């Protein structure tokens, strides 16, 4: 049994949610509760397997081939006519992402318990989405990667478009079009890669090895980069995000910010960096500037928001800027910081969106100015919110601090002034976080909300694991850092030509 699981663990992790989705489809009408439990079970299984994966993963190997670095590989032909392979494996870059995704999905199901319209469709789509996301992180055949990428896109569109807020259609279309632009660009590059390689292949490891012969490198790089930049999202491709977040139901916002955004930076690291390393290196300054703009611009935009959810959305833009900056530094500190920040941001922002959901469920209100004194009305809620916001503003001792400091330390080695400007982001972030807390939780109690119930067990259950990680990874980041160190060290040497 263990042997079987071990041999097929990535397939299992990826497709168990899909299996759950199929089961959800055949559950008869009127059994909403059963659907929710099935959905929870189908997301918990990948999590359980991910824990085993973590246990079995050997963090010491590095490289980007089956001989070193890639583990738990499955590599069999899929569509032989086009040499398309079913090629899955994990390394130190994908491991944290798989863990993050597997962790966040069950929490989202918990947060979706209150959805009572179209339960079957919702959970079907959600589970399909999880398969898509996990698939993206484990696929190393470009075609397979692309298939999962698209699989992920469609459920997202419907989840926002059907279960979203008042302007859901606008938001969903906007999301869809933006992401599609990225997809199309990626598709064209993929086809180019296929025909440029000899023999024709979609295998990323082979493409990485042969890529130095490809032409039109800068154009290809930009096509890929813009596709991924939309996902991150980098300024000026970001305006779909606040709209999508505001309209999306809580759990979908959580997945969107917690996992989906990371696919952008993951894609850049996996494809741009490994297949077009020389162009990536030459674009370091461009990427760093974009990271800086995201950090500062996102923070200022966040400060001006009165809608709590929009504020959190813009804070995501700001925090993803740190990822970009770290990646652009091409230093060990910066790269590790960037990937750690991807993980940490996933945890913190998931927490923040869950927190927004808690108050919105109770009051149907997200206007920051509309609250006040909630700390005395909902003390436990206040505690988790303070924890999450302080993590977001990078309080030392909590998780984001370490990743942000690593990013800045690494970036400073390469870009002096640019990093200093980026670091002012921590001041602006502190200002808008504290200002938000003050307006919502401190001061006089708003009579309208003086008897709101504190967080319930289900909400506590969805927030607690994230809260624990926020503290634990701040005090002891080793469990995540250790996963990625060798892989990213290799990657840095590979790209920097060292």
């Amino acid at each position, binding site marked *: 049994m263990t042997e079987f699981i071990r041999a097929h663990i990535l397939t299992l992790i990826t497709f168990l949610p899909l299996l759950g989705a199929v089961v959800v489809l055949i559950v008869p009408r009127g059994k909403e509760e059963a659907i929710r439990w099935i959905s929870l079970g189908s997301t918990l299984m990948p999590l359980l397997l991910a824990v085993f994966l973590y246990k079995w993963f050997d963090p010491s190997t590095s490289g980007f081939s089956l001989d070193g670095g890639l583990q738990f590989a499955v590599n069999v032909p899929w569509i032989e006519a086009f040499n398309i392979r079913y090629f899955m494996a994990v390394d130190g870059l994908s491991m944290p992402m798989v863990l993050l995704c597997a962790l966040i999905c069950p929490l989202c199901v918990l947060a979706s318990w209150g959805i009572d319209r179209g339960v079957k*469709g919702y959970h079907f789509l959600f589970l399909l989405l999880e398969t898509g996301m996990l698939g993206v992180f484990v696929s190393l055949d470009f075609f397979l990667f692309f298939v999962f990428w698209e699989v992920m896109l469609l459920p997202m*569109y419907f989840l926002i*478009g*059907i279960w979203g807020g008042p302007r859901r*259609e606008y938001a*969903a*279309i*906007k999301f*869809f*079009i933006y992401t*599609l632009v990225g997809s199309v*660009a990626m598709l*064209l590059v993929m086809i180019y890669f296929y025909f440029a390689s000899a023999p024709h292949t979609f295998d990323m490891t082979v493409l990485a090895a042969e890529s130095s012969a490809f032409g039109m490198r800068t*154009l290809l790089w930009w*096509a890929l980069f813009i596709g991924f930049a939309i996902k991150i999202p980098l*300024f000026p491709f970001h*305006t779909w995000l606040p709209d999508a977040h505001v309209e999306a139901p809580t759990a979908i916002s959580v997945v969107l910010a917690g996992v989906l955004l990371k696919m952008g930076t993951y894609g850049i690291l996996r494809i741009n960096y490994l297949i077009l390393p020389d162009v990536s290196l030459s674009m370091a300054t461009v990427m760093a500037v974009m990271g800086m703009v995201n950090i500062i*611009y996102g923070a*200022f*935009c966040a*400060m*001006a*928001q009165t809608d709590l959810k929009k504020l959190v959305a813009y804070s995501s833009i700001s925090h993803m800027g740190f990822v970009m900056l770290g990646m652009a530094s091409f230093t*060990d*500190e910066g790269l*590790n*910081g960037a990937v750690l920040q991807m993980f940490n941001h996933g945890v913190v922002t998931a927490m923040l969106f869950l927190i927004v959901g808690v108050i919105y469920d109770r009051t149907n209100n997200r206007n920051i100015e509309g609250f006040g*004194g909630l*700390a*005395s009305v909902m003390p436990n809620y206040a505690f988790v919110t303070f924890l999450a916001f302080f993590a977001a503003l990078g*309080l*030392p*001792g909590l998780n984001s*601090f*370490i990743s942000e*400091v*690593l990013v*800045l*330390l690494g970036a*400073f*080695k390469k870009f002096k002034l640019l*990093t*200093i400007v980026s*670091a*002012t982001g*921590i*001041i602006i972030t*502190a*200002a808008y976080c*504290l200002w938000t807390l*003050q307006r919502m939780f*401190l*001061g*006089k*109690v708003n009579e309208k909300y003086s008897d709101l119930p504190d967080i319930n067990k289900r909400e506590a259950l969805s927030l607690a694991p994230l809260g624990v990680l926020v503290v634990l990874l701040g005090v*002891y980041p*080793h469990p995540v*850092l250790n996963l990625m*160190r060798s892989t990213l*060290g290799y990657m840095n040497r590979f790209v920097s030509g060292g």
Partner: protein
Amino acid sequence: MRAFIETYGYLIVLLPLMGAAINGALGRRLAASFGERPGGYIACLSVAGSFALSLAAFTAVLSAGGEAIVNRAYVWVEVGNLRADVAFLFDPLSAVMILIITGVGLLIHVYSTAYMKGDEGYYRYFSYLNLFVFAMLLLVLGENALLMFIGWEGVGLCSYLLIGFWFSESRNAIAANKAFIVNRIGDFGFLVGLFLLYWLVFEGTGAGASEGVSLLSFTYLAANVHLLEGVTIFGVGAATVVCLALFIGAAGKSAQIPLYVWLPDAMAGPTPVSALIHAATMVTAGVYMIGRLNPLFSMSPVALAVVAVIGAGTALFAATMGVLENDIKKVLAYSTVSQLGYMFLAMGVGAYSAGIFHLLTHAFFKACLFLGAGSVIIAMHHEQDIRRMGGLRSSMPRTSATFIIAAASIAGLPPLSGFFSKDEILWSAFASGHGHPALWLVGLLTAGLTAFYMTRLVVLVFFGKNRSGEPQAGEEGHGEGIKESPAAITVPLIVLAFFSVTAGFVGVPGKSLIAGFLEPALGRHEIEGAGHALEYALMAASVLTALGGAGLAVLLYIRKPELPGLLAGKFALIYRLVYRKYYVDEIYGLIFVEGTKALARASAFFDKYAVDLLVNLSGLLLRVQSRIAGWFDDRFIDGMVNLLADSVMGCGDLARRVQTGRVQAYILVLLLAVAGGIVIKAII
């Protein structure tokens, strides 16, 4: 003892954290079943335990002859060339600091059990207070700069939580925000200093480093800062740039010009908090930081000069604001800013041990003053305006006696502790190699002003007529009356007053014990070429100035009480300027707060109306285009999409939503555009 600290030193830090965790997690339940007292006991015990261990650590350091003892817990972060351990450094400097923190901290915890009695958030208060002690200990014991930074911002967090402790008052919450954000500005400087230092030690000096070396550890830095010699960055000496960046951090935490504005507002917190955090410990962190990094600062005369000038300037500037203040706590707050300025003056002239010596004596007399003020505030039923006090000497004998002693100490009357430490600083400012007579003169003026405003405070609170409308013991009148505080309050006062008197004797000029003890950490600070005669003359000058200041206050506020009003009328402009604190808050508010908000609004506006406008415009264009392709759409794609959706999802409704005619057209155009681009590219 040494082996014990090497193995168990972390307990000093851990105990208060455990106290905080217990009160934080179980406090409400404990209070519900046993009343509030157990929470207070747990908090006091944890700090008491930490104090006992600190004594052990102190003796260990003493017997180690000042050699540093390190207790390593675990590797915290290890990436590339960065390694930071969770490890604690015990050397003379940190040993003195932890004794102050846990010793004064313990007294203030005990005091708080009475002061906070009956408060709704009693357990929450002690949880925060313990957490503060934890963070402060981490700050001073951290073996590397990154760990120190956890404590650095940790104390900021606790300060934020405690200033805003009574958060249902918006005013308190706003003061808390202000404190944290101004501190963040400082922390930004601190971080930039760290980046610079890390980069410089790593490669900027060309020295490089092997993996696994704890680059930011203080021992490593102390041994390697010499590498920075002759290195420049941005065209300026590397050491200078690093020190100035770090000093921004110190100025934020220790409330120096231009970042002092948060401290007076911080008085919104409970008074024991003001005593512990905003007088005795946290605000001295900047002084400690310079002490800790003294090998670095010593390399840059420019940075030292900046520190000295800012310190002296702040000392004088804040003292003038204390002169006209009427809130008992705010007088003390400005006085704290001013005294911190003295400490920076000492650091800036290279007299590191003199700075730490003043930090020590200041911890005693200022904590005593704040706690005394708290005792008065309780007795006055939360009245803080000294114009409505007076004559409290008769009903509060212990509070008034200890307060007067501490006030005399801060005023620099011999042979109280403040006299010795202040004099050491003034002497160094005058005669040290980095000193200058002008710095000494500013310090002297400040000493006069200090004596003046402290005497004014004492006179207005404890002497003269009772202006409160509340009866004192033995007086007729309505109200609950003014009574002396209980033992939990007065005993800490007496202990602190005792040390306010005696602590100075560890630093008697010529045979200073403390300077000798600190020497392994701070180096030796010799003043050469200046005779003792000069030293005694300057000493006499400062004592006379202090007496003059005090005498003037007595004259103005006892002998001729009508004079202050007359003077205020005569110099109305200056009076108003000082009374309104030079309008600094208003100016900052206008420039920085409103400026930042305007920038934020501008960004959001740009986002909505520029970036998104383009997006929506292109959407509109495509919609027009889609009309043109409408007939095609209706007949073919509509039907196909519906069919597809019906069969796959069994839900025709969904398809109607996708099918708005835009998406397909968009893809089509996009594909054509990209394909066109590629074709053009290929042709070229």
